[in-house]
Every structure is written in C-alpha cells, then in structure tokens.
C-alpha cells in the first residue's frame, strides 16, 4: 500500500517526464480530458486533467465528470508513475482497469506505454 503523499510524489515525477517528452506531446495533441484515478485498496480518488498536450497536477478527490476512470491499487499507481511497472502487463491481466470511450482508452493505454518505454 502506498500513502497519498507517496502517490502524489510519484505522479509529480511522472508528470515532469511526460511533459518534457516531445513524442507524448504529439500523442496528446487535441486530447483534452478529465481523468479520475481510483485506488482499489485504499478507496481514494484523484483527478487529473490533460489540456493543451500537458498533464495537469494531481488533485485529491473525484472532481467533475470524468472522461476516463483508471482503477488500480495505490502501489501499482505509484510503481507505474515511478516507471517501475510495465502498464501493458497490468492491463492484460486486468489488474489495472481503464473505463471510458474506446478512443480514450486506446489513447491512455498507448500514452502510458510510451511514458514507460521512453523515459
């Protein structure tokens, strides 16, 4: 289990790397979305937004209507943000669940893979 602070710190690191990555900036072009993160073990909710090809800060709580909801354990979120976890494995065996329109799911799936590979 990861604490809210640990998760926020890991996200901050990931966000910095993503926003500095030109390939991701291209993939995120024109894709402005609200994403909710739900931790399945600690039952917490977070909100982040993508706007103008940039990932925004992580806010505590489920704010606004989400385009996408990602559910995973707090540990998996933290590992994913630190770049220690290959997201495709976790999607494939259903440990990370993405809910949203098929296009949004496709985008988030691909961008998290690129963020993992291209760090």
């Amino acid at each position, binding site marked *: 289990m990861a604490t809210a602070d640990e998760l926020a710190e890991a996200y901050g690191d990931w966000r910095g790397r993503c926003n500095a990555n030109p*390939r991701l900036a*291209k*993939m995120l072009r024109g894709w402005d979305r609200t994403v909710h993160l739900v931790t399945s073990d600690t039952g917490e909710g977070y909100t982040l937004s993508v706007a103008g090809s940039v990932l925004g800060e992580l806010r505590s709580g489920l704010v606004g209507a989400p385009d996408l909801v990602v559910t995973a354990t707090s540990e998996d979120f933290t590992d994913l943000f630190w770049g220690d976890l*290959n*997201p*495709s*494995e976790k*999607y*494939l*065996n259903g440990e990370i669940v993405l809910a949203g329109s*098929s*296009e949004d799911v*496709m*985008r988030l*799936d*691909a*961008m998290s*893979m*690129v963020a993992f*590979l*291209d*760090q």
Partner: protein
Amino acid sequence: MVVVGAGYAGLSAARNLVDAGLDVVVLEARGRVGGRVWSETTRAGALVDHGGQWIGPGQHHLQGWADDLGVTTFPTFGDGANVEIREGRRHLFTGLVPTSDREGSADAVAALLELDLLAHEVAPGEPWTHPDAIALDRRTLGDWVVSEVGSAAARAMITTATLGVFGAEPCELSLLYALAYAHGGGSMSALLRTAGGAQERRFHGGAQQMAVRVAEALGDRVVLDAPVSSVRHGPGRVSVTADRVTPDGHRRPWRVDADRVVVAIPPATQGRIAFDPPLPGRRDQLVQRSPMGSVTKIHAVYERPFWRDEGLSGQVVADTGALRLVFDDSPDDASHGVLMGFLAGHEDRILDGSGTAGRAAVALAELAAAFGPVAGSPIEVVEQHWSAEPFTRGGPVACLGPGVLTGCGPALREPVGPVHWAGTETATAWSGYIDGAISSGLRAADEVTAALGRPVRQGA
C-alpha cells in the same frame, strides 16, 4: 438452394437456409469441411490447428457456435517472458511490446495509436464511404509507415505485426484496407494482443470441430469431393456443375439446379469458376485484385513444453528471419509441448521452393536460437503451406492493394442475379476471421430468404 464451399461461411449460410425451411445442397471441393480451419492429430499424437485456431473477445458469432455445440476454450499460454530477436540478438521481455530498444518500441506504440485513431473513422463494412477514401486507398500501409514512423526498429515491429495479421508485407496492402480490417476487429492493437485480443483463447479439441458438427447436422446435404467448376445463371435460376469424384475414382461433371446459389469461397478461388454469363466487369476485377496472403504454419512437437520450466512463454517476436512470430500451441493439459511459428509474406514465397524439409530446417534453427538446442530436436515437425492449396491459394485472408476497395469494393456483397456472396472477405466485422465467415453466411442466407419472400430471421 446451392451453397459452394463448406468452410465456416458456407456452413453458416446452409445452416440458416435450412432453418428457414429451404432445401440446400452444399458442394465442397475438399474431402473435409472447415476450409481454412483444419485440426489434425499428428503421428506423435498432438492435436494441431493448421489454420484458424484462436477466438478473442467480441467474436460473438463464433462464441455462439461454440456454446451451442458445447465446445469449450482455454487461454493461450502466455505466462513468463517472451523472446525478442532483434538484429540477430536474443532479448527477453514481458507485456505487449519488446523492450530492448525502448525508443523504437515507443515509436511503434505511438504509430499503432495513430493507425487505430485513423481506423476508428473507417466503416469496416463500407470503407469506400470515408471522406478521404480515395487518398487512403491510394497509399499502402508501407507508404504510411515510411512517412510516419521514424525509427527502423519501430518499422520492423510494424512489419512483423502486419505479417502476422495479414500474411503480407505492409507494402502490399492498401492503407484503407488495413484500417478497415483493423476496425472490423476493434483496433489494430486488439488484433495483435493475446490476452484481451484476437489470440486470447483456443478450442479444446481444435477449431475445426464446430464446422464438423454443423456439417454432421446438415447430413447428406453436404457433398464432399465436389469442386464446382461452373455456374450458369439466369433470372431466378442457377445451374451449378461440380467435378464430382465417383466411387470408381473418376471425376464426372455433376449438375445441381437451384433457385439461388451462395458462393462462400475465397475471392481468389472464384476466378477459377466459369460463370455464364460472365460476371459484371467490376465484380471480375475485384476477384482479380484479391490475392491471398502467403502463410505457412509450422508446428514443432516436443515431449513437453520445456521452455515453461525456464520461465518462457513460448512467444517469439523477430525482426528478421523466417519465423517472425512464434506461439506456445501446446494442448491445455500440456501432454505435449508444441511451438507454432508463422512463416509469412515474402519469406514464405522465397521458401516455397525449399519444400517441407527445407522450411522445417530453417524453422528449427530459428527455434533453437530462441529456446536453446533442445528446440532444434523435436519429436515431430508438421506444416501447412497454404499457398499450395488449390482451394484456398494462401492465407489467412485476401490482401487488397491500393485502389481496389474504392474501385471495386461495392461489388463485394452485391448479388449478381441469383448469385450471392459469402465468405470472411465479405464480412462487415471481423473480416478475415472465423467469426466474420459465420456472420457473412448468415447475411447471405438472409439475403436469399428475403429475395424468396421468406421472413428474415433475426440473430445467429
């Protein structure tokens, strides 16, 4: 009613026509049903699928047949690390994409996303209606890869994926066709996935069983060893001639007259049937421009799946060589170990002259490079070289080049008088797959019953 071909499409058409109360004769060229799906027990006692074998999420027609007939499935083995062969070196990775060249893989994932976003805008059943259809159909998938994908490693990954899905090189496929095909199965990434995708599960007892059972239920309506050579058609009447093998082993023309015919064979084999009067020009051009992909499946059978002991999944992704993709095709109970490799596209054509033994030697050397010397000494190797099959002519599916869909696509399903078209190539979803074959047969049967003024049945 006559149905030509007892693959999944023809059997589906026949089953639905019989359910609608019509008299049906199915003429099948081979001595077996199932067409591109053929399960065989090898001498060593392993059951292999020489053609279609997998079922994935969203394939409701095939799942429906399996449920009806009580055929069960099991997950494709995928535990452990996959082997990547890149520039002749061996690496291990887990998850969907190789990780030895992370930047190349990131490029490949970004490119796949681009393709999937494009594919989402193309209607699988009628790609020619896309506002940019002409432009998308003038380019090949290969042109797109060259202009959009920066790194050589990513291009090689997309080529390997294309070979696995189509049995063709990216330069052979119209971009519009590739996009429509991908969307028909959800997305390109869905076509490439094992878990969560088109390679997710296999059938206990092999994928041909459902065809065999449906044919058994159709009984003597299914006539084997009856390759159709000509179709004469006039308004509301057809007469279909097959070269039937007589009990004394001779071939004799055998004619069946009917109100309508459903032709459920690959387009490339339709060109070998004499239609009288000839087909409309556009339909004939479509047939001429629908070559089959090139694919051979090679199965190496071992006492046991020894690679699993080393934490390997049995899957290989290679950027060069003959076998670009390998899977663990062992039975669910692991009573044998079976590695199955695809030989596809250019390599398959180049190795045509090497014969079965030559292809096996190349395949075993590559399996040994991926899994160690033990893999080079299986108890048995069997192959199915689909290009040499006169009633299939390649596989897994027809591969349309530039200009075909926009020029001839609307002729795909359009009946010609009393002649109706089925087959996976005509499907509006999962074209190229068993599921698409079944739905195409259902659609053709509905066309026939509607034309005859019978009520159209709903569902599968």
